[in-house]
């Protein structure tokens, strides 16, 4: 049994009086497709935002590869060794911001696609390679050969992901000129370009037709074969049941069940959450 890639312990998030995520303990196994389902307002997207670092949890902990995203080791590494660590104790207590989680290997897509409308399709994916390259203002300004090589590399990688999505002939088009289905693929390609270990897909199937959904589930399987752990939030039950190896059910912020598709379908609490409770 290998180490789970992501664990949450007692994770809670409250917006004022509303408790959106309530003491959730999750374990997401490495290399599997996990789905998080639940009725509307169950706190699925909030959970995603907590993992991705958009929100900070009210209490609890998130462990990525066994390391807390709060006292993250590499966050400590960013402080020079000679300096007094006590001074930066406060900084170590802080939560890692979103962009640092991305460079750690957590990628995500959004419910509303959120592409860069001022760029072409290829450039969108190239931007995804940001954390895997390091040339800065100065290198760019005087066009060092190192930077040029890096740029070629980025272009090559981006083209790889572009072709994987089958968007090759649209490379030079504006990203928002694509139809919604392809925009969603592009968003996934952009997330993949960050070369993540864990990818969070927020409702990838919403707004797609039946054919596109079938292609999507093939794509997600292919992503899993690349060695990337997939977590998805999805409302489309046939898609989830056909795809997910492990399903976690949330209702009003709490985890009410988890298991394989067959186990979850039989669970009484899950049926109650979706269809309303029986009067006794």
């Amino acid at each position, binding site marked *: 049994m290998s180490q789970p890639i992501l664990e949450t312990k007692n994770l809670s998030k409250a917006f004022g009086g509303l408790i959106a995520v309530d003491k959730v303990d999750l374990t997401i196994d490495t290399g599997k497709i996990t789905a998080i389902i639940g009725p509307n307002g169950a706190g699925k997207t909030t959970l995603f935002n907590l993992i*991705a670092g*958009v929100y900070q949890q009210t209490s609890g902990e998130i462990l990525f590869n066994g390391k807390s995203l709060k006292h993250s080791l590499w966050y400590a590494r960013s402080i020079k060794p000679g300096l007094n660590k006590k001074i930066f104790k406060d900084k170590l207590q802080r939560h890692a*911001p*979103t*962009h*640092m989680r*991305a*460079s750690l290997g957590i*990628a*995500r897509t*959004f419910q509303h696609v*959120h*592409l*860069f*409308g*001022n*760029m072409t399709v290829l*450039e969108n994916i*190239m*931007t*995804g*390679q*940001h*954390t895997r*390259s390091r*040339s*800065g*203002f100065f*290198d*760019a*300004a*005087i*066009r060092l050969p190192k*930077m040029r090589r*890096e*740029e070629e590399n*980025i272009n090559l990688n981006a083209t790889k992901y572009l072709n994987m999505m089958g968007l090759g002939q649209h490379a030079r088009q504006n990203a928002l000129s694509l139809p919604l289905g392809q925009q969603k693929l592009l968003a996934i390609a*952009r*997330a993949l*370009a*960050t070369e993540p270990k864990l990818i969070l897909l927020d409702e990838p199937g919403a707004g797609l037709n039946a054919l596109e959904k079938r292609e999507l589930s093939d794509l997600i399987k292919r992503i899993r074969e690349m060695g990337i752990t997939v977590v998805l939030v999805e409302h489309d039950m046939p898609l989830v049941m056909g795809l997910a190896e492990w399903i976690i059910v949330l209702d009003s912020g709490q985890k009410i069940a988890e298991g394989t598709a067959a186990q979850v379908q039989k669970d009484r609490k899950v049926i109650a959450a979706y269809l309303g409770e029986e009067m006794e």
Partner: protein
Amino acid sequence: MMLKWVRKKWNYFAIAALLIFLILIPFDWFLSRYTSLMIIIGISTMVTVGLCLLMGYTGQVSLGQAAFYGLGAYFSAVLSKTYSLNPWLAMLIAASATGAFAYAVGYPIFKLRGNYLAMATLGIGLIMWILFNQLSQYTGGPDGMSGIPYLSIGGFTFDTNFKRYYLVWFFCLAILFLSQNIVRSRTGRALRAIHGNEAAAESIGINVNQFKLKIFVLSSVYASLAGSLFAHHLRHVSPQPFDFLASIKLVVMAVIGGLASIWGAIFGAGTTRFLSDEVLLGFDKYPQLDIIIYGLILMLVMIFMPEGLFVAIKSGTLWLKVNWREMPSIMKRKRKEWPNQMKHIFSRLLLIRLWRKSEP
């Protein structure tokens, strides 16, 4: 064959033609009477490029760029005249001090989300203008200070417009070139990503605040360099060229030049400066006319050509190149649609909807 080659290398030809034109301007048999205007245009272009990077690429509006421009000019003036430092050293100190100031100001601002930068820079612009006026023991107050030394390299002094023209345009083209390189790189993509969607930019690992801060500092350094050149060009600085209207003028330049195009900055700065220094100078009966004209330009460009005049002209010529054969039929069709379109546009402009019944 030859024609094909020319068409393929068209960009290089255009740049070469522009360079030759720029080199020839200060000669007596060419356009030498515009030399001093062209120097000012070059200086303005440097500030505008910074503003293009900040506004057009990163989407952060600055309404106080003249403050950094003025800071550069005053630092250079005070250091090289009062403390008789080497002008080049003064220029360097001015640029780094202005950059540090921009960093100190930007650091808290970029912790906030939204368009707080515009508000804050507006404040900085006004505060700086008051300081230039009031710190009269250093800056000479509203009258300014004169007698700033010329720049010189070794024994070669830049004491005529002819020499300074080349100095300013060397700096200007260098900055344009460097900025063009920045835009077409990983950094440039990150900046455009921030403009496109901040949440998404952050989700793929771009440190949004840091990049905003860096580009803000870079644009202020550009402005400061331009200010230093300005001080050593006129040998006189006064608060007047760095007031609020100057900031607005700079925004107008960036907007006309097309916010998302680096080379458009020359065009924007050129047209705006030409308008204010050559055309509108004739209307000295109406001294505030330029404010009205700038407001009008800003409004019209924003309504009809949100991508800027330069980009609009560029795409217009491209459209003509593709469609020139069908022009007569298009004109015929347009003539029918035109009155209706104009009515629609004017009704929007005049806010007729305000006193018409609300739509069902």
